[in-house]
């Protein structure tokens, strides 16, 4: 419209006024220069953020509604604030959607690693927090190697940045990486040490910013502690069901690269020493040792300590001598050991004392490591010895509670050197060092880790490892202290109680080792024997008739097992200890398994000749006679109270003791020893179960023509009738199994000695005479006390005897005795006058019921009926 008109006008004008313009037909004119473009173009506008309802349904977003991709894009925004917000956003998103991180972790790392050398401090800090709190924990189980290698290039880059802040931050990042992926250090060890060295050389900064220096140094300490060392690490873990002959691939040892870094490490140590030296004047000028500078110095010293340890004990090809050459050893001895001990110039607070103490302890530890390499002069050595003595005695540290805590925490650093020092220094110092060590051992808290450290040192000094060399008997100084330590052990056990089973276990282990070792050393042998008295308190004590159980009862199973094993090694177990063990075994709270184990080990000790036979047998007898059966009634165990009852336990105990006794050697000799003891006990009328157990022991040891002496047969014949009647009275008739268990021992005895049977029958007969029946309280039976039940029991008993084929055969030769018993029963019925009618009725109904079959049985003997049977039957017919 406009466009088309305008050119035509112009054309006309031009054509008239000016020269003619050639015009080609069919062509449009170029637009005029001043033409306004009025064309309207339209494009679709996509605004995903603004349409709330549609787009972000399935996507994980941060609080501000940004997706991970956007956040990552924003993290490289030129505005520091936006970058930081993006990082915060990522953190926020990852917390809410952990899966998102797992899916895109490589993308995230690749983007975020650029920020490690970010110019802005706040951004770096945010990044650090993000890595620390989310990304590393989130990616812990992944293939970390790749992950770390992505990061490391940027970290190294940052470490060489010009800005010191960025460099320091890079170290902080590296520290974080090492925490989550320790092998990373060994991969880049050389480069890392170089970086540390470079940064520590810049000595102007650390005097200014100690906080940063502190974090850097603590990172260094962490790195160095990853250096491999030869200290024996016990690998006791055996996986349960692994196949024994399984192929085990040679795991590539991560330590292979460490030989090369020794040179670097040496330089680093020199730098650290210089660093330390720079700090010293500062300390003197400062009014007091503040926390930051203390931490810095401590980290430095710890780094040196670790490096030195690596030089000496580490796994590498070079010898310690070649590493600690002139430069290093002179630097160490002049600049580090020369200033020892550090002490406060102004002496202001107690806290400061403790700090100086810690520093000195570390320096002393370094010195002790290096002692053989630097060959210190006598003066210096003396100085250190003096410090060690005082440190052990606790005189340097403050007496406040925190001081004590520091002392307990840091003394273990010095302890590993004690055995070696004590064996090498001159006698005067030896006793001083051992004295102070003993003081430490006694003084420290039983539950502390210091105590454990002391214990392991004691083990080392008492039981030499490796090639066996013995403490010479002439070495009286050492022996005195050894005595003190050993005597302390059982007391310590009692003191520990059951509060800390792990500590008790350590003590018990030491005791066990001591026991095993004591066989070859006469001095230790005697001392170990003496422990018994103190140790009996660990099990139980008996004071004025009251029993007190020791910590043994309450310790976990493995500790109990250890303490039981200790018993085996006493070459002469004394009666006191045996007594307290007996009380433990008899205690119903102790698990049966443990008490069986005690008996088992004691028997093994007996076999090895460590217990007197008399003591051993009386131990067994006490167990049998004093074992308390719960519940007390003899009634057979019903299903419901199996849990409460310990009948089963006692049965297996009896079986166990019987088999042990029969293994003890010539059984006739053992029998004579046991016989006397058992008869003594049996006459005291023990409960039926215990009596039965003792009878069982007798028959196990006895042989076919009985070995019982005349006296014992008489004694038994007085006891057995009561026992038998009680058994019959107490156990219901249908429970044949229980019956057999209790009565069988008697049958065995009858089988072996017919005389005993005759006497027993006589006594049973005499029970039934009138005069005895009228005495209501006869002591020979415990349960079947009244006359009615006694008669009842007699009849049941005779029935039982006749049911057993073997015994019936034996008893057939005692017709007269049986006959007289039956007769007296029968006559009792007829002549019962004192009873009331009702009683009489009950009596007859119950007795008759059983009496007839009995009489018939007796009558059915092969020889036919005898006259008295006929008489009895007649009598019944009358009544």
């Amino acid at each position: 419209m406009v466009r088309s008109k305008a050119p035509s006008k112009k054309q006309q004008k031009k054509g008239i006024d000016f020269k003619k313009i050639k015009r080609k037909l069919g062509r449009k004119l170029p637009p005029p220069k001043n033409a306004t473009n009025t064309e309207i173009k339209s494009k679709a506008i996509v605004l995903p953020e603004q349409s709330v309802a549609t787009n972000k349904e399935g996507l994980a977003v941060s609080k501000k509604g940004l997706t991970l991709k956007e956040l990552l894009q924003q993290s490289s925004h030129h505005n520091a604030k936006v970058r930081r917000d993006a990082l915060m956003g990522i953190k926020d998103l990852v917390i809410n959607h952990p899966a998102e991180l797992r899916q895109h972790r490589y993308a995230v790392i690749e983007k975020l690693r650029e920020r490690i050398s970010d110019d802005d401090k706040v951004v770096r800090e945010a990044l650090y927090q993000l890595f620390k709190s989310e990304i590393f924990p989130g990616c812990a189980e992944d293939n970390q190697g790749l992950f770390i290698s992505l990061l490391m290039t940027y970290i190294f880059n940052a470490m060489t940045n010009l800005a010191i802040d960025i460099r320091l931050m890079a170290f902080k990042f590296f520290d974080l990486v090492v925490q989550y992926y320790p092998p990373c250090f060994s991969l880049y060890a050389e480069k890392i040490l170089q970086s540390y060295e470079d940064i520590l050389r810049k000595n102007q900064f650390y005097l200014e910013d100690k906080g940063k220096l502190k974090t850097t140094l603590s990172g260094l300490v962490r790195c160095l502690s990853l250096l491999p060392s030869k200290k024996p690490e016990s690998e006791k873990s055996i996986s349960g069901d692994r196949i024994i002959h399984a192929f085990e691939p040679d795991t590539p040892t991560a330590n292979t690269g460490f030989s090369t870094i020794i040179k670097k490490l040496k330089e680093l140590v020199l730098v650290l020493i210089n660093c330390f030296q720079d700090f010293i004047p500062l300390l003197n000028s400062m009014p007091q040792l503040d926390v930051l500078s203390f931490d810095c110095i401590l980290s430095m010293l710890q780094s040196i300590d670790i490096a030195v340890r690596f030089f000496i004990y580490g796994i590498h090809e070079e010898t310690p001598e070649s590493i600690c050459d002139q430069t290093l050893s002179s630097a160490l001895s002049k600049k580090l050991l020369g200033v020892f001990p550090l002490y406060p110039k102004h002496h202001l607070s107690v806290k400061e004392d403790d700090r100086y103490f810690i520093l000195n302890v570390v320096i002393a530890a370094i010195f002790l490591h290096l002692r053989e390499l630097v060959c210190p002069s006598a003066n210096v050595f003396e100085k250190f010895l003096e410090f060690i003595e005082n440190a052990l005695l606790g005189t340097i540290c403050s007496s406040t509670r925190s001081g004590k805590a520091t002392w307990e925490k840091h003394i273990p650093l010095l302890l590993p050197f004690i055995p070696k020092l004590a064996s090498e220094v001159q006698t005067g110092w030896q006793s001083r060092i051992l004295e102070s060590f003993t003081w430490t051992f006694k003084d420290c808290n039983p539950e502390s880790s210091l105590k454990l450290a002391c214990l392991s040192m004691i083990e080392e000094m008492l039981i030499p490892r490796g090639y066996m060399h013995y403490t010479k008997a002439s070495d009286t100084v050492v022996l005195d202290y050894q005595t003190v330590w050993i005597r302390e052990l059982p007391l310590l056990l009692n003191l520990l109680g059951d509060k800390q089973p792990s500590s008790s276990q350590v003590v018990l282990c030491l005791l066990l080792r001591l026991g095993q070792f004591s066989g070859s050393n006469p001095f230790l042998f005697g001392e170990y024997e003496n422990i018994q008295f103190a140790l009996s308190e660990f099990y139980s004590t008996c004071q004025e008739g009251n029993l007190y159980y020791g910590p043994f009862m309450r310790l976990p199973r493995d500790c109990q097992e250890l303490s039981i094993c200790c018993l085996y090694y006493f070459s002469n177990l004394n009666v006191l200890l045996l007594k307290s063990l007996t009380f433990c075994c008899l205690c119903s709270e102790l698990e049966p398994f443990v008490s069986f184990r005690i008996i088992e080990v004691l028997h093994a000790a007996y076999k090895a000749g460590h217990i007197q036979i008399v003591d051993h047998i009386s131990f067994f007898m006490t167990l049998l006679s004093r074992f308390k059966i719960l519940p007390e009634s003899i009634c057979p165990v019903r299903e419901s109270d199996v849990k409460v009852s310990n009948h089963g336990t006692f049965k297996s105990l009896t079986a166990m003791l019987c088999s042990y006794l029969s293994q003890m050697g010539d059984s006739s000799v053992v029998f004579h020893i046991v016989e006397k003891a058992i008869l003594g006990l049996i006459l005291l009328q023990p409960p039926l179960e215990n009596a039965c157990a003792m009878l069982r022991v007798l028959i196990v040891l006895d042989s076919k023509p009985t070995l019982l002496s005349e006296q014992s047969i008489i004694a038994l014949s007085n006891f057995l009738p009561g026992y038998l009647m009680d058994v019959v009275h107490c156990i219901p008739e249908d429970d044949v199994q229980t019956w057999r268990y209790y009565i069988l021992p008697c049958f065995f005895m009858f089988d072996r000695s017919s005389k005993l049977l005759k006497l027993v029958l006589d006594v049973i007969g005499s029970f039934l005479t009138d005069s005895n029946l009228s005495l209501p309280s006869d002591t020979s039976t415990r349960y079947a006390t009244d006359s009615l039940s006694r008669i009842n029991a007699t009849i049941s008993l005779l029935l039982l005897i006749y049911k057993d084929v073997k015994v019936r055969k034996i008893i057939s030769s005692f017709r007269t005795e049986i006959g007289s018993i039956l007769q007296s029963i029968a006559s009792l019925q007829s002549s019962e006058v004192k009873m009331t009618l009702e009683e009489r009725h009950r009596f007859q109904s119950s007795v008759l019921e059983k009496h007839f079959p009995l009489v018939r049985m007796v009558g059915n003997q092969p020889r036919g009926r005898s006259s008295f049977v006929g008489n009895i039957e007649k009598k019944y017919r009358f009544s």
Partner: protein
Amino acid sequence: MNVVIASSSIDGGIGCWDLQTGAEQLRYKTCVSPPHGLASIGCRFLACSQLRDPSATSGHVLYWSWSKPQALVKSFPAEPIKPLAANTEGSYIVGGGSSGDIYFWEVATGRLLKKWHAHYRAVTCLVFSEDDSLLISGSEDGCVRVWSLFMIFDDVRQQQASHLYEYSFTEHTLRVTDIVMGYGGGNAVIVSASEDRTCKVWSLSRGRLLRNVLFPSIIDAITIDPGEHVFYAGSRDGKIYIAALNAESSPTNNYGLHIIGSLTDQSKPVTCLAYSAEGNLLLSGSEDGMIRVWDVKTKNIIRMFRRSKGPVNNILIVKLPYSLSRAESKVQASSRRHEISLQPPLEKYANSSDEDLDNKAIITLPDMIDLPSYLSSQLINDHIKQLQQQGSSAAAEMEVKRLKHDGQRSMEMFQQLKKVYDNLQEFCVNELLNGQPMEGSKGN
């Protein structure tokens, strides 16, 4: 012929039965052996340490020849010896003393070649490895140690090393009761049993604990099956437990982890076990004096031997040389007796004057047997000297051997000549017989 030999801690002699037929052989008299105290010295004769009483301060070692019931040689070591072991060939005897020392004797001379302090407490069992280069000892203090004989006799290396043993396993808390070794030389496994109710499996190559098997009772004897799939553990509760060495067992079984079954028949404690690869038989000795022979596959008892009343505490399965197992004529018996009487008793102390002499071992190259034999150079020197003087029995024996060899060669030569002669004769006869007709025919 495989025979079963069993001894006891109560005097009843050493019983001896044929494993195949069950026939009882000679009973060797007056023997009171501690556990692991019975050893067969290279199948040539029997040796047994004697201990009447566990706390006795002296004991002795007896030798029996196979053919005589009476002990022939009695030696008195410096202290009571409990376990005895000999290498396969029977050239050395090792004894464990009650103070923890180990004694190393040469059988042929009776010399005490070495004595060293091995344990803190009495040695309870000794086992040689398959190739006789390692000795494994168990002790009352619960320690199991592995000794290399090369190290024991190498004074220079000994001074350098911090300890004499190769490994020291201290995980057992109580007395070690038995040790067996698997197959495979340096890669073998060792199984040790202890009074702490456990058996532990150790790796010889890696020197560490591989498996810990907890049993319901104390294990007194173990033996390993030739396939090394399982080991058998005889316990004090009378059962023989079967514990897995290879298979992974389900933890839900009755006895405990790794225990896959048991053989039961008796209530008396099992005191010793032996495995006969011929016929896959397991032999168990028990406290009641019986020796039971089990078929491992069916888990049934197939035979029982009854020793006299005392508990059995050692069983050995010995393959007797054929000549011995035949009914021996009196001549043979006397010659045997002659041989055994030549074994000198074991010396009490190491002879200090001998120390100066070289006691290197000479390994003679094997001619008849597969294994090289180790003899101390001094013994060889003696033999040479005797040979030169032509006086001694060894020399005479060698002379006899040489003569026998000569005789054999003469026989061979004789045979050969005879054959040649026969051939010649046959040829002549043929010639004669054939010649005539030929001649005749020619004539014709």
